[in-house]
């Protein structure tokens, strides 16, 4: 069964008199337990596409059009508000890039995780507390008994990101959407968080959507890759092919622009305006 099914999705933003086409005619399917990577530079529409799956685009200026938009068999196009409560947390949940602004600074980390559990599950406070403690242990936070009473500013970036993963997993979702979960982190912490996400995905047989601009992250975590540019899908193939034989010149340029692949001081591949113009023309 497909956990995500999108057909001809278009997202457009009204800006003064102009229309900005953020996402154009995207179709994709994701089956259960599969991991999918989305690559693209900032502004390529990668985040917007998947925020629409959780109904997070509710600006009055946004126009969402699609032939089909389903998550876990629930149709998002009709009767949105009621459906969203079913999807969020239980079927799909999301981990954001900036963990510092994703937590409320006025409440403890534990309170916010417990709040999520109480909203979506039929339990009492004591049970939820125990569950939150278990979750913090699961994401390898040391001293979870202490950390559960910490405020977000008392934790480091890596620890907060772990806490956010714990919160996202609290209702055992079938799909985890990770939107640049490691971009703001140190290299060693990044490697640890990626390992954690990968392990949890295999253990719980979740589907995973990893949104990033870093092909290194992609090579480490997912099975299938979609390359996005200018709101469109440029390339959709499995992770081995993307690195062995990138079909689209944009994919190739992305791979070549990663520093430190070869020894010696050298200049890196830059994407020129001429190349950009030619890709835009082909859209």
């Amino acid at each position: 069964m497909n956990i995500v099914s999108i057909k001809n999705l278009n997202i457009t933003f009204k800006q003064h008199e102009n229309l900005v086409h953020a996402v154009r005619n995207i179709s994709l399917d994701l089956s259960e337990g599969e991991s999918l990577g989305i690559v693209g530079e900032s502004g390529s529409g990668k985040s917007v596409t998947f925020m629409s799956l959780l109904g997070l685009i509710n600006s009055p200026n946004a126009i969402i059009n699609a032939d089909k938009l389903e998550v876990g068999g629930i149709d998002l196009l009709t009767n949105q508000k009621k459906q969203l409560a079913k999807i969020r947390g239980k079927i799909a949940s999301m981990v954001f890039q900036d963990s510092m602004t994703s937590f409320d600074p006025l409440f403890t980390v534990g309170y916010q995780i417990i709040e999520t559990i109480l909203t979506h599950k039929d339990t009492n406070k004591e049970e939820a507390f125990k569950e939150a403690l278990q979750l913090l242990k699961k994401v390898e936070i040391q001293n979870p008994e202490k950390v559960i009473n910490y405020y977000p500013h008392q934790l480091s970036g890596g620890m907060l990101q772990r806490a956010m993963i714990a919160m996202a997993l609290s209702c055992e979702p079938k799909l985890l959407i990770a939107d640049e979960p490691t971009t703001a982190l140190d290299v060693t912490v990044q490697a640890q968080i990626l390992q954690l996400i990968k392990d949890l995905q295999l253990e719980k047989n979740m589907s995973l959507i990893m949104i990033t601009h870093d092909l290194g992250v992609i090579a480490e975590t997912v099975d299938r890759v979609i390359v996005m540019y200018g709101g469109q899908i440029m390339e959709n193939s499995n992770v081995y092919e993307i690195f062995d034989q990138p079909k689209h010149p944009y994919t190739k340029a992305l791979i070549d622009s990663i520093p430190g692949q070869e020894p010696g001081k050298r200049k890196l591949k830059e994407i020129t305006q001429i190349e950009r113009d030619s890709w835009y023309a082909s859209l």
Partner: protein
Amino acid sequence: MNTVLDLKNISKHFIINKGLKNIFSQQKEKFIAVDKVNLKLESKKVLGLVGESGSGKSTCGLMAMRLLNPSSGNIILENNNITTLKNYELKSYRKKMQIIFQDSYSSLNPMMTLAQIIIEPFVIHNLHTLNERQELAKELLNKVGLDKTYHNRYPHELSGGERQRVSIARALALKPTILVADEPTSALDVCVKAQVINLLHDLQEEMGLSILFISHELNVLRSLADTISVMYRGRIVEEGDTEIIFSNAKHPYTKSLLDAIPSLNPNNRKKRNFISAEEIETNIPKFSKDDVIANIHSHHKQLIQINENHFVEGVVN
């Protein structure tokens, strides 16, 4: 070789305020951010300083610029000791070294246009006439790859990569010989990161700059730096030529940094073993007497020279 900037045995201690008890007690609690570090920046070379957050690498950069005063040690800039100079005495030296910060958004004044931002160093040092300043600003914008029509814009109108270019233009205005780059590419997209790295590469060759490049990404340093110093908990644990560090790292912390770089080959996915801080401290490399060329005892832990350009913290059996 010609050393332009020499940090000798430099340390920085921060005093931690833990309420009234600490304020009134004689023994204040100290945090040692940088612990007797030696760094030499050679003329027209790029020195990469790498380490995790909290390792003291940025503190080193700030002390080199005298934006922070070291607790002990000396800063030698082109054979002049600038460690204890007063601010007004420092002014003439400031022309020789400039800094680029990580967060270009907060390091550019939002109330000033780009032209005003780039001209400000001339105003402070009282250089050139008004017209010349305008011309130079346009020239500098051009040099960092921005259109000259940009000079009337404000920082918020630019993208992250463009703002970082403006920081670079401002830093280059006074034609410095030394540039301290404090994680200038960490907040940028891959494509933009490549552009900024290439720009620094070109400028370094063109203007003969010596760059202290601070970063937590070893792979960025590989394509830019001549030598790399690895910092861990306030000390240098390994230093050497870039390729030596990549091919023949000895210290467990350097190894863990190298291991954390994502591989671009999905066939090579590996289960990583993360080593804890205790393991790094206990697994210090051991060398036999034959390997050792020289010892540098700046420290309770010693830096051992094991090759012409390769130093590792360790013990000798």
